Every structure is written in C-alpha cells, then in structure tokens.
C-alpha cells in the first residue's frame, strides 16, 4: 500500500513539474521545475530498489547537470519573458498524444514470448550497489571505460568552447613575462 501511495504521489508531482518546465514563460521557473523533477525521479529509482541508480541520479543530474544549466542561464536576461512561437498547438499536442497512445498500446499488448530469462539476474541477498559493481566492472567494463573517455572528451570540448583565449600558457612563462603582458593589457584598457 505504501508503495502505491508513494508511486502515485511522486508520479503526480513529476508530471506537474515537467509540465511546468515545458509550458512556463519564465526561464528560471523552468529551471527550478526541472531540478525538482530530477529529484522526484530519483525517488522512483529508490522505490524500484535501484539504490545506486537513484543516488547517481541525484548526484549527476540534479547536481552536476542542473549546475551546468544554471551557469548557462547566466547568459540570459532572465527577467525577460520567453516568447513562444505562435505555433500550432493542436498539431503539437495532437502528435504527442497520438505517440503516447501508440506506445501504451505497444507496451500493453500481451507479450508474445513466454520464455524470457534474465541476462544478468539480480541476486536477492546482496545489496544493489554490490551487484551493480560486480556487473559494471566485469560484464560492462569496456562500455564503462569508453564512457569515461567520452566524458573526458566532453569536458575538454566544454572547456575549449566556452573558455577565453588560451594561446598563452601562464605556467610555462616566468614572472617577468607575465608582468609585461599585464602592463600591455592595462595600457590598452587605460588609453
């Protein structure tokens, strides 16, 4: 019973939060609603017994990703209202509803095959984190390493794209040169 209450409560809240994200005209409200939605989703993970996943969701999504978005928000005039296109709401909503209905139909259809065996079955007595660790570092090792490399690449790309001019390497120059460059810059600014 508790599970049902929790499920419906969090489901309702999540839907409301995400609805606010896509329909509000205030950018900050959208950001806040998104962050709230992320946390509520992690609640689902906890309900489903995927503890590690839930923790990762909070840390990565509502922590790192939301922080990134918050930094991104600095580039706007957030007092201004977001102007929405005068798009055809009917088409948008209609398409989405149809897509949703179709997916539900597909999912609700009775499964055709009956002999489904789990690939990496969950062992009841070990904790979720332990199990995830075992599977992740043995069976999924290569994707794990690749994901790590990909994150590294993304980080470097983010720095390069967003950083200032980096043709001078401050650590390799000595004090006198750095002072010289600073004086030149100051001169330019002052004159």
């Amino acid at each position, binding site marked *: 019973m508790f599970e049902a209450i929790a499920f419906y409560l969090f489901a309702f809240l999540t839907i409301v939060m995400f609805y606010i994200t896509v329909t509000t005209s205030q950018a900050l409200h959208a950001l806040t609603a998104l962050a709230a939605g992320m946390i509520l989703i992690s609640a689902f993970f906890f309900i489903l017994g995927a503890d590690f996943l839930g923790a990762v969701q909070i840390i990565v999504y509502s922590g790192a990703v939301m922080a990134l978005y918050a930094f991104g928000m600095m580039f706007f005039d957030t007092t201004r209202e977001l102007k929405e296109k005068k798009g055809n709401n009917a088409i*948008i909503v209609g398409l989405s509803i149809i897509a949703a209905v179709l997916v539900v139909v597909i999912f609700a259809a009775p499964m055709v095959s009956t002999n489904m065996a789990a690939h990496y079955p969950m062992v009841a007595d070990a904790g979720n984190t332990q199990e995830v660790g075992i599977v992740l570092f043995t069976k999924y090792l290569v994707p794990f390493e690749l994901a790590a490399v990909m994150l590294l690449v993304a980080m470097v790309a983010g720095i390069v794209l967003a950083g200032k001019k980096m043709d001078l390497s401050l650590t390799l120059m000595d004090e006198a040169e750095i002072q010289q460059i600073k004086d030149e810059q100051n001169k330019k600014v002052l004159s």
Partner: protein
Amino acid sequence: MELYLYLALFSPLVSSLFSALFTATPKKQFIGIVASGLIILAFVSSTILLTHILSGGDVVHVELMTWMAAGDLYIPFGFVVDQVSVTMMMVVTLVSSVVHVYSIGYMDHDKGFNRFFSYLSAFVFSMMILVMSDNFAGLFIGWEGVGLCSWLLIGFWYHKESATWAANEAFIMNRIADLGMLIGLFLVYWNTGTLQYEQAFAAMPSLSTDILTWMGIFLFIGAMGKSAQFPLHTWLADAMEGPTPVSALIHAATMVTAGGYLVIRANPLYDLIPNVGLFIASLGAFVAFYAASMALVNRDMKRIIAYSTLSQLGYMFVAAGLGAYWVALFHLMAHAFFKALLFLGAGNVMHAMHDELDPFKMGGLKKPMKATFIMMTLASVALAGIFPFAGFFSKDLILEVSIIEHHYIIYSVLLFTAGLTAFYSFRLVALIFHGEERYKLFGIHPHEAYKFMLVAMSPLLILAIIAGSFKMTYFEMVTALLPATEYHVHSVAMYWIMTIGTQIFVILAIAFAYKKYAMSPVTVPDGTSKMENRLCYKILINQYYIPYIYQEYVVKPYRELSTIFWKEIDMKIVDASVDGIAKIFYSTGENTRTMQSGNLSTMLKWMVAGIVALLSLAVVFGLAVRYSDEIKVILSGLGVQ
C-alpha cells in the same frame, strides 16, 4: 581460280575505299585512274573466270566465313561462280570499266570527283556481291547495297532539291519492294529450312503449290521494285537527275537488271509455278508497251532513254516469265551494251549542249559530233533489233518464244512495242543529230567529247554490233544451269515470215521517224500547237498522271498521317507521359524540400510525426501477426487465396 574470284569481288571494294580517303580533298586525276584500273582488273578476272567456265571447267564455289549460325539458321558468306553468275559478272565489270574511264572525262570539272568514284566503285562491289552470292541472304545484302549506292549516286549533286527528291523516291520505292522480297525470303527459309540456293531449290518440289505461289509472288514484288515494273516504276525516270555515267551504269545495265537476275536465278521455283510466270510475262508485256508509249512524246533526252530501258526490262520479264530464262539473260546482256552506249552518247551530247536535255533545242549535231553520232545511231539500230546487230538476236528470240508458247496477245503487244521502240529511238536520233541546227538559236557552241572517252565507249559499240554471234556459245554454256529449251518455230515458212515481217515493220517505223523529224522542218514546241493540246498527248507527256496520283493519293495522306502521329500521339501522349514521370519526381522533390526549413522546431515536429507513423506501422504489423489466423479466415471468406 579462287584467286580470280576474290580479285573480281574485292578490287571494286579496294577502289571504293581508296577513293573514299580523298573525298574531302579537291579533285585528283589519279584517283579516277586508280579506280578505273582496279575495276578493269576485276573485269580481267571475270573474263578469266568466263573462259574457265566456257571451257567446261568446274563451278568455283568458296565460303569465306560464317555470317550467322544461330539455331537452325546457317548463313555463310559464300560466293559461287557458275554459268549464270559469270555472265552477269562479265557484263557488270565490262560496263563498269567503261563507265569509270568515261567518268574521268565526264566529271572533269566537278568538285565531287573523288566522291563520285568512291560511290561508283562501291556500287560495283555491291552488284558483285549480289550476282556472286550463293544464298538469298547474300543476294539481299547486295540488293540493299546497290539500292544505297543508287541513292548516293542519284542524289550526287545534293544541293539540287530535285536530285535529292529523286534519290529519296528511288530508295523508298525500292524499300517498299524490299518488304515483299523479305517476306519471300522468310517464306523460303520457313519452308525449306535454308537460304542456300542449292538446298532451297532442291527442297522446293516437295512443297505445296500454294506456298510456292506465295514465295514466287513475294520475291517478284522485290524484283518489281528493283527493275521498276508497274506500279513501282516512277523512280526510274526521275533517277535521271543523277550524272549520266550513273544512269549508264545503274539504270541501264546493272541495278535494274537485278530483278531479272533474281527471277533467272530462282528459275527452279518459277518453273514450278507457271501461273505466276504467266502473270510476270503479262506484266512485262504491259510495261514494255506502257513505257514505249510514254517515250513517244517526251522532251527529255535522258528520260526517253530511261523509258526505253523500262520497256526492254519488260521484254526481259516476258522471257523469264514464259520460262525462257537463258533468252532473258541473253537479252539482259545485249541490252546492257547498247543501252549503256546510248546513255554515254547522251552524256556527250549533254556536255556539248551545256546540260540541255530537250532534243527539240538541238539538231544537226552530226557535223560537230561525228563520233557520237555514229555510236548513238548504231546503238539505236541495235536497240531496234535490226539484223545483224545484237538486239535482233535477243529481241526477236523473245518474240519467237511468245509465239511458240501460244501467247498471241503478248506477241502482238511485243511486236507493236518493237515498232514503237524503233520509232522513238530514231525520233531521238533524228531530232538531235539531223535537220537544222536549232541550237544556234540558243547560242550554244557544241564540241565533241575527249578522245579517251570515245575510246572507252568503243568496246560497247563493238559488242553491241557483234554480240549476236555469241548466241550459240552462250547457249551451250549457260544451259548447264538453266533449262535448255530450244525455241524453234515449227514451220520454216512461218519463221521467215515472222522475221522478215518484223524487220520490215521496224524499218518502216524508222523511216517514219526520219521523215517526220529529219526531213521536215521542226520547231521548238511551245504549248500552242495542235498536237500538244490533244488529249492523248497530254496523257502521255504527264506519264499517264501516275506520278500525280501517287503524290495526291499516296504521299499526301501518308504525310498527314505522319503529322498526326507526330503531333498528337508522339508529342502529346508518349512524350507527355515520359515527361510526366520526370515531373512527378521533380515536383515531389520541390515540395518535400520545404521540410528542410532549417528551423529546428519545424524539423523536430516532422521528426515526431515520422515517429508516430513508424509506431502506427509497428502496431498494425503487430496486430497482423497476432491475429494472422483470423485474418486468413476473413480473406478466404472473401475469395482471396
């Protein structure tokens, strides 16, 4: 012996290709000499082969290589030199050599000198293929080749609209006849399984008369086009647009005789279907009279000679139709000599008179052009059939054949035509060479042709005179292959009455012609005289209005039909549908191009729409799989398997 066969066959080809190298360059004298030399080489080879065959040698048969070997069909490039083909070869190469040498002088001032020799030698090559081939397919190749070269040569002066029109007319009429010939060839192959002469003719007696009749009729239709029998005859008179040596070679001696050669070659077939033979003979007699009647009043020198050719072709077909093939071949040979001579003489006159063709505007040319005068007169005498010239032996033989076979109508038509022939030939000679010198009114100064041209014409003159004496040798040789029916009138008295009577009739006609045109004063008719306004004159001078009928009732409707097919069907339906398919693609691309607006929102919407479509497909598919049994029941209820 095979060497001579190859020489005779391929030297004209070498000559043609050699001359073809120089078609874009200005006239070079040596091309004419080289070409003539090669043709004379072919003539010498043919003569050697002729002596070989005459002395009882074996028939020379070579097979160069296989042309088609597909399934049951086997057609080689095979050539045979037997009695019939060696006769034709000799005639063709002799007349061609004379014409080549003559053309060096005749085409002296023409810009297309080199091109002319190329075409002329190509024609000789095609004709040699035609007569030397040992199967119907090779015959057909040569048939088409001479048709093509005839088109090239008639339209030699292609800037002239009339020349190109005449060339097209000749080629198209030949083509219409070739359809008949092809059907005949198909029938031969279909019923006998081969196109080789020997095997086909051996298989023919076992076929039904109906099939043989159709075969004979269709092959004769092909011969009708090539030899200009009625109703496919209008092209021959118009073909005079080409240079005179062309007329001498093609339209007197060689190409037009190809039809006769076909009938002679297919004599085993025509022996089996005497009804068709009778039809051929009747048509030939009709054409003989028809052409002679048109020549009576014509005012174009070359046209008169062309009608004369047409008339004599009729004689040849009478002989071939009545089964006297060797007589037909003999007349073909003799006719080639004196007709070519007549044409070449006419060429001399044309050159002298600056291409004037109306004999009424000439007259009294025997003084400046003595040699030509003698040659043309003697040729006309031979044509009229006066003893002892060549024409007597061949033409009178044909008259005898018709009497012996009891075809009295044909005999009387041919006899009357002989008189007409004599009349119009000497009308022409008298108008040109005798009487007052009317050409002075038009300010023309005639001169004789070059000496070497006259020397070139002399072999023809000699043969036109003495060819009759070859009759017995020829008869013995050629009847090894052709049916050897001797034609003797039963009673000696009747023979002498016939012969002498024919001679007197002919001589009277000549005298009448002389009296009317050489003795009495002649004026250039200008449309006002009583004769010109008589109905029969009008009919004859307009060639029985046949060209007019063809133009109005055949050519014009066909042209209308072609225009309809072009504008309505081809452009509106066929082109439109093809263009329409292209347009559909293009417009589809144009319209779907707007999907790529560059606007991310729009494109995302399209993406979602696509996803929805795919999901629907997945649902439908899944339902179909899930309920496949029920669907099968429903469909079988509706009758679909």
